[in-house]
C-alpha cells in the first residue's frame, strides 16, 4: 500500500513549477507551507471554518486546507505571495496597508486572496445571498458594503478589522 499512498505531482504556484513527491494526505495548504516555501497562506482552523488558508486555484478562491495537494496537479495556484507582481503592491494590498485592514495580520493573506477572487466573481455577475434581485437579465448587483460583507464572510478576523477591510475592498472596487 505504501507506494499507493504517495503521488508525484507538478504543482504550479505563482507561475513557478514545483515537482513534488507527496503523501496523498498532504493538503494543498501544507504542501505550500512545508514543501514550496509559501508560508503566506495560514492554518487558522484546518477545517474550512475560518478562511485564513484561502488561495486562488485557477483564479477562483478556494480553501487550501480542504484541498488535497494531489488534486491540484495541473492547476495554477496563486498565493498571497503571488499577488504583488515585481515588488509593486497591488492597489488592494496598498489599500489594506493605508486603511489598516488588519491588526495581527494572520487572516490577512486569506482576506486578500478572498477579496481578489470575490471581486472577479462580482465582475462576472455572480449574485450573493444579499442580492435583492437574482434575475440575470437586469443590471449586475452593485458592490456595496452589505454585498462585500456577505461575500467576505468566509474570512474570519478575530482582531475585528472587518470595517477597515470592507473599506479597503470598496476602495479597490471603485
Amino acid at each position, binding site marked *: 500500500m*505504501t507506494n499507493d499512498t504517495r503521488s508525484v505531482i507538478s504543482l504550479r504556484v505563482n507561475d513557478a513549477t514545483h515537482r513534488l513527491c507527496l*503523501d496523498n*494526505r*498532504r493538503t494543498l495548504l*501544507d504542501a505550500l*507551507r*512545508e514543501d514550496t516555501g*509559501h*508560508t*503566506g*497562506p*495560514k*492554518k*487558522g*482552523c*484546518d*477545517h474550512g*471554518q*475560518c478562511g*485564513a488558508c484561502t488561495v486562488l486555484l485557477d483564479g477562483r478562491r478556494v480553501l487550501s486546507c480542504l484541498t488535497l495537494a494531489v488534486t491540484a496537479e495541473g492547476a495554477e495556484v496563486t*498565493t*498571497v*505571495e503571488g*499577488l*504583488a507582481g515585481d515588488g509593486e*503592491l497591488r492597489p488592494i*494590498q496598498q489599500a*489594506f*496597508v493605508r486603511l*489598516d485592514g*488588519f*491588526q*495581527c*495580520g*494572520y*487572516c*490577512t*493573506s486569506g482576506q*486578500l486572496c478572498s477579496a481578489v477572487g470575490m471581486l472577479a466573481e462580482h465582475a462576472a455577475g455572480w449574485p450573493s445571498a*444579499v442580492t435583492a434581485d437574482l434575475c440575470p437579465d437586469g443590471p449586475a448587483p452593485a458592490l456595496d*458594503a452589505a454585498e*462585500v*460583507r*456577505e461575500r*467576505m*464572510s*468566509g*474570512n*474570519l*478576523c*478575530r*482582531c*475585528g*478589522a*472587518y*470595517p*477597515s*477591510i*470592507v*473599506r479597503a475592498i470598496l476602495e479597490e472596487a471603485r
Partner: protein
Amino acid sequence: MNAESSVPTAAGAVGVARPRVEGRAKVTGGARYSADEPVPGLAFGAVVVSTITRGRVLDIDVAAVQDMPGVLGVIDHRNAPRLNPEAGHFFGPDGGLRLLQDDVIPHAGRPIALVVGETPEQAYAAAQALPVVYDVRPHDTEFFFGHPAGRPASALFDGPVDVGDVDAELAASAVVVDERYGTPEEHCSAMEPHSATAWWEGERLQAVDSNQGPYQIAVTLATLFCLPPERVRIRVEHVGGGFGSKGMCGPQLILAVMAATRFGRPVRVTLTRDQVFLATAQRPATDQVIRIGADADGRLRAIDHVAAFELSPLAEYIEGCTELTKTLYAAPAIRTRLTAVPLDILPPYSMRAPGAAPGSFALESAMDELAERLEMDPLELRLRNEPVVGPVSGLPFSSRNLVACLRQGARRFGWADRDHRPRMRREGSLLVGTGLAATSFSTGAFPSTASITAEPDGTFTVVVAATDLGTGARTALTAIAADALEVGVEKIGLRISDSDLGPAWSAGGSRGTASWAWAITEAAAKMRGPERPATVTADTAHLLGELPSRERHAYSAVFAEVTVDPATSEVRVRRLLGLFAVGRVINPLMARSQVIGGMVGGLSMALHEEGVRDPVSGRHVNPDFAGYHIAAHADVPDIEAEFVPDHEPGLPMGVKGAGEIGNVGTAAAIANAVWHATGVRQRQLPIRLDRVLED
C-alpha cells in the same frame, strides 16, 4: 521622567496617523509567525488530549503506534521530564503547566501525550490511533451562583469592599433594581493557533513560540524546567493575535521543549483548533447579582454587586467582575463580593478585558433597568451619578473624561431624539432600538527595561522585549522612541520580540505599550543627558513605586442601534459608536482599529459567543469555528470610534491602554438596545435566537 509628568512637547511622530511599519510584510505573506519559521531537521509533535473530564489514565499503548510510518516516539507521564511544581504566573503556582507529570486527568482536553513524527501527517495519524484507557471518575462542570463549592475569590485584586450601609440605603431607595446576569464561557479564539518550535543549541534552549511576552514566558519556562533563565531564549516575531490566551506559557511550548530534549532535534508543536479551544485558557462563566437603589431623581443610594465565576483547583485566578462597580458611579453605599467556584475545568485565565467585559455587562444592564424603572433617560442617569473622587478609594482621578465621552457620543449618535419607551420604533417588519453603556478600564504600567544604542550612522537601535500581537506596538514604540530622542522615525531601528532583549512586561492588561514606552523614554532621557553614552539601558521598576496613588482609568461610552425581526428573532447591529478617553493617542489610525476591534469583540460576545458543555460528559461540544461562532463580516456594521481629548499625567507621553476598553460596554449597549427594540431584557449572554423568540 518622574511621577506626574507634563505633556511632552517632542518632535511629533506621536499623534500622527501612520500605517503599520510591518504593513508591507503582512500584505505580501512575508510576515513570519511562529509556525512559519524554517528550521532544518524539524520533527512534528501532535498533541493527544483527554477525552474524559475527570479520572486517570490507566494505559497508553505506545507500542500500538510506535511502528507506524515516520513515528519517532511518544512522550507521556511515564517518560516526560519532571517539571518544577513552583512554576506559575501572576496568580502563583499553576497546575495547568505541569503537563505529563502523573496519570491524573483534571479536565477534558488536558494534554496526556505527545506523538512525534517526521511529518505532520504521520504524527497526527499516530496521535489519532494512540489507544488510551481511562478510569473515568465523576465530574462536576456545572457552574452556577450558590454552587456549594464556592468560596471567596482571591483578594489579590478586586477584593470585597463595604462602603456605607447597603441594606439601609436600598431600603431608603425610591426604586430598586435586583436582577441576575450571566455570561458563558468564552474563548479568546485568536486566528493563529498556538505553535512552538524548540531545539537545543549546545546548552541553550531555543524556542520560537506564539506568545504575548517572550521575556515573561522565558522566565516561566526556565522555572518549569529548572533551568537558569540565561539558558532559555524565546523569540516571537509576529503573533497572530492573543487576547489573553497567549499570556501564559502554553502547552505547545512545554511539550515542544520536552520533545526537543528527548529526541535531540527541533520539534514543532502546533495545537489543532479544537485543542486551542480545549487546552488554552477561556474566560470563565460568570453569574452575577446586582442590586441598585436610587432616589426618584436618579441619584444612586447603593450598588450591591455580588458575582461568581468558575475556576479550576489547579490554579488561582480572578475574574474581577466587580472592579468597575468601585469606580464608575458615585453612591454612598457600595458593596462587592466575588466568589470563585472550583470545577473540573481547564484553569480559566484572562481574556480580552477580563472582569470588565462580563462585569460591565451586568452593571450597565442594571443601570439601564434602573433608568427604565425611573422613567429616565439612561444617559441622564449616568451623568447624574458622576463621582468627584473614587467612590470606594476616596482617591482623586488622575484624569476622568467619561462625561465628555457620553455627551459627545450622544450628540453624534442622535441620542436626544430617542423615545425612551421600549418597542416604539418599527421599520417595516423590523423592531428598532438603541442603547448605551458607560465603561472604564484601569490603566497603568509594569516594570520594563529598554536600551538604546546610538549607531555611527546617526540612527538609534532601540531594544525592548516587547511583542506585537497586532496591537501596533512596533509602530507605536517607533514613534515614541523617535519623539523621545527628538529624531524622525526613519532614524529608529526597533528590536522587539526576543527574551534576550531584557526584562519587560507582556502585551497584556492594557499595559504593554505604556510599560515599554516608559522604559524607552527613560533610556532616551539618559541618552540625551550630558554624558551622551553610546548605549544606555533603563529600568522603570523603581519609578513605578513613585507614582502617586490615583484612580487611573480609561473611559468610554458605547452607543448601539439594533434591529430585531420579531418573526425570526434575528438581531442585527446596525450602528455602533464608541467615544473613548484613552489618554494621549499615539497613532490614531491604529488606535481606532484597536478600539473598533474591541467593539467587534463586544458585539460578538453579545450575540454569538458561548462555550457549550455536554451536560453528561462535561466536555465542550463546540470547540471549533463552526460551533463556536465569532462575529463574521456580515455581522459587523461600519463601526465608528472617536477619541475625546485625554491625558494620563502619571505615564510617559500621557498614554493609557487602549487594548481592552473597546471590548467593555459593547455587550451591555447591545443588550440594552435589544430591550429598547423588543421590551424584553436579555440578562444572559449570548442573545441567542431562542432567547429573543416571541411566541
